[in-house]
């Protein structure tokens, strides 16, 4: 039987359906798992994404031909049947299930198995072949329980507020920033947001996602106007003159990479909170097991170690080369991680 999905120069391709999933080169028809820049690119003739992901994709890509689909609804595209299922990565993110002649493959984009109170929780989808990321595909990456993490962040904010310092936390504008907003305790103080974060907030609020009250940082704003505030900024804004306006401040990054002491120290922030919108080691392994798939493709992250591990566990495991950037922490702008770009 021919493969349901193939891996091409332009992206993941379905011959039977004649469409691509998260392509990185311009193609006619693209199915998009979620709105992050390395999965949702400009230049496709037609796009298809979930209802919940569509507003952000439009916000980022502008005037595009974008059709939408609710989670779980099956749709026929040429010789293939596709459906979108929650990936738990960011609001609206999806795994894409493709069925051709009874053979089911799932392209999972980026995913996270633990519910974060914001994104639609991850749903395992039974399949024969599963295409997985492995950004954090090593056993040193194990996330804290959500309530422990939340308590750490709130304690840091409260201690800063009590000492008269502003708390500035760097988090990617789509997904992680809103996840922080939903988990922190707004009774500690006011919450200010960087423009890029607030623009995404506006899009998400407009589609009915509940976020706490936030105040957009404006050029004339002074720290004294909002004592004890938590500022949610993009990672690249930390350490710039934009951040210095808040006077005495404690800075933090929120990223899965903060699990590593070396990376934490390299960031030169006061604190590093281990917050990720990707699955940790246990999450990846559980997700794969629950698909029931025997054939696994690792796309981005620690692919060679993860492939070997899966092969030794008895899977028919392969590495495929893509242009998704989950692994890298090296992009320009000092503080952004690849995870942030992903």
């Amino acid at each position: 039987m021919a493969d349901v999905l193939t891996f091409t120069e332009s992206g993941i391709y379905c011959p039977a359906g004649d469409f691509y999933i998260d392509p990185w080169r311009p193609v006619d028809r693209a199915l998009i798992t979620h709105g992050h820049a390395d999965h949702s690119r400009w230049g496709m003739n037609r796009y298809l994404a979930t209802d919940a992901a569509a507003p952000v994709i439009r916000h980022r890509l502008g005037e595009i031909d974008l059709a939408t689909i609710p989670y779980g609804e099956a749709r026929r595209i040429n010789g293939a049947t596709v459906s979108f299922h929650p990936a738990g990565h960011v609001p609206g993110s999806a795994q894409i299930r493709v069925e051709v002649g009874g053979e089911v493959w799932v392209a999972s984009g980026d995913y996270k198995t633990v519910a974060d109170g914001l994104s639609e929780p991850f749903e395992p989808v039974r399949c024969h072949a599963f295409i997985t990321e492995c950004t954090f595909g090593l056993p040193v990456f194990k996330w804290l329980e959500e309530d422990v993490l939340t308590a750490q962040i709130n304690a840091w904010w409260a201690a800063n507020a009590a000492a008269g310092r502003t708390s500035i936390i760097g988090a990617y504008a789509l997904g992680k920033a809103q996840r922080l907003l939903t988990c922190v305790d707004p009774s500690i103080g006011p919450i200010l947001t960087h423009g890029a974060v607030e623009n995404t907030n506006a899009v998400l609020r407009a589609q009915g996602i509940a976020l706490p009250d936030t105040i957009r940082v404006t050029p004339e704003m002074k720290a004294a106007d909002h004592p004890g505030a938590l500022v949610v900024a993009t990672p690249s804004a930390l350490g710039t003159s934009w951040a210095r306006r808040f006077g005495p401040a404690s800075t933090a990054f929120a990223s899965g990479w903060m699990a590593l002491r070396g990376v934490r120290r390299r960031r030169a922030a006061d604190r590093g909170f281990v917050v990720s919108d990707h699955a940790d080691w246990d999450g990846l392994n559980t997700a794969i097991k629950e698909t029931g798939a025997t054939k696994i493709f690792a796309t981005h992250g620690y692919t060679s170690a993860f492939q070997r591990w899966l092969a030794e566990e008895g899977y028919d495991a392969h590495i495929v080369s893509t242009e998704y950037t989950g692994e890298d922490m090296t992009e320009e702008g000092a503080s952004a991680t690849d995870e942030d770009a992903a």
Partner: protein
Amino acid sequence: MKDFAALYARIDESTKTTVKVAALADYFRTAPDDDKLWTVALFSGRRPKRTITATRLREWAAERSDIPLWLFEESYHIVGDLAETISLVLPDATATSDRSLTFWIGEIKRLSAADDTTRKAGILSAWDALPGPQRYLFTKLLTGSFRVGVSRKLMTRALSQATDGDEANLTHRLMGDWTPETTTWERLIETTDPSTDLSRPYPFYLAYGLEDLDALGPATDWSAEWKWDGIRGQFILREGEHHLWSRGEDLMTDRFPELAQLRDFLPDGTVIDGEVLAFRDEAPLSFNALQSRIGRKTVPKKLLTEAPVILMAYDLLEDAGADIRALPYADRRARLAQIVAKAPATAPLRLSPTVAATGWDQLAAARESSRDRQAEGLMLKRRDSPYLAGRRKGDWWKWKVDPLTIDAVMIYAQQGSGRRANLFTDYTFAVWDGDQLVPFTKAYSGLTDAEFRQITAWVRKNTLQKFGPVRQVTPEHVFELGFEGIQASPRHKSGVALRFPRMLRWRHDKPMKEANTLADLKEMLAAYG
């Protein structure tokens, strides 16, 4: 251990000196004496030695975590730190413990002396009883690799704040070969006069690299001498016993047995600051010769004749049993000259010569001749300056010669570890031999974080082959490398070995074909080797 872990976290999280000092001072005010003593010991580099091999620890950690050893190794390679890797891969602690730092160090010692089965059981149960951060510190202590981002100077400052003791006096007290087993908090910090310990060295005065020659004032305020390329040492002779200390406070007395004869020629109660140099026919031998002596606890006869050492004396800290560090440099130097003059010419002792000059131009010219004298440049010392403790700006400056340089092509890259985990920071460089690129050195430092990030992204896209952690990359980028010396080396394919190679800059402007050649390197070897 919980309090110690909290202290470590406060220090580790912050980049601000004041926060680190305050955290330590708080700890010194509240912790029990034996934990404080261990903390001072650990923060001044007196860590317990590793007695259990890293191999065993890896095996036990992998087994306990239910992962294959190769996967542990892969993880270690990314994390860059064994103790951290272990503490991250292990399952969460199931027991809880509120035992002290001193207890766990005692436990490490107990297990060190035990058989393998007891060790394994003890370590597995410790890992299981300690939550993440404490487990990490316990394992750091176990592997003998505990380090902390606080200098001794800052630790001493915190100690001074917490005890109301004088900082310089405390610095002196903390010198020497005490361990928490041989002393108590009270004896070390509170009661005893520091000079009662006969082997105790004075804190070394360390110079910074010269920043601004024009700010130094007239050259006649300064004394210049050669900056020797040997091992800094403090020679102590008190009550007929001698001791030789390295700058890192290692006792080197037995490594350089020829210096024992100085007991016959120096007056009792003498402490000299100088450089241990391999030396023959009134000239220093290359650092290579001295290198053969480093790390050897005992010295075979052959080496004693091949690489004999002397003490090149440049300062006198104690004269006739009196601490004279507060005297002006010129006075100390005059006393030192008298002492050295009384020793016979056969004694392994020389007075480091001063470079006579009336103006900076003369000194600048002398500095240019440093390499011919096996020196690294000049040391400038203000004539009226006291001998200070630790690294201070103002009175002593290193004025080193510019490094030798060569333009080379990057051909391999490897990820760094620790702070540089996940960045490609370790490169192998090559020069042209005809149309072949011949590797000749590695270098790790000298670029900015932004440049390392840029190269890392490039390496990922331009990998030709992977050999384990090493990636062969497309030859394309040219770097200017700086180094302090060059020697013939049969062990290297290129036939040369460099001393202190580092990247001076990334030559974006230079096409690969214009990098230097093996012939250029050989020419440098002939000139400076």
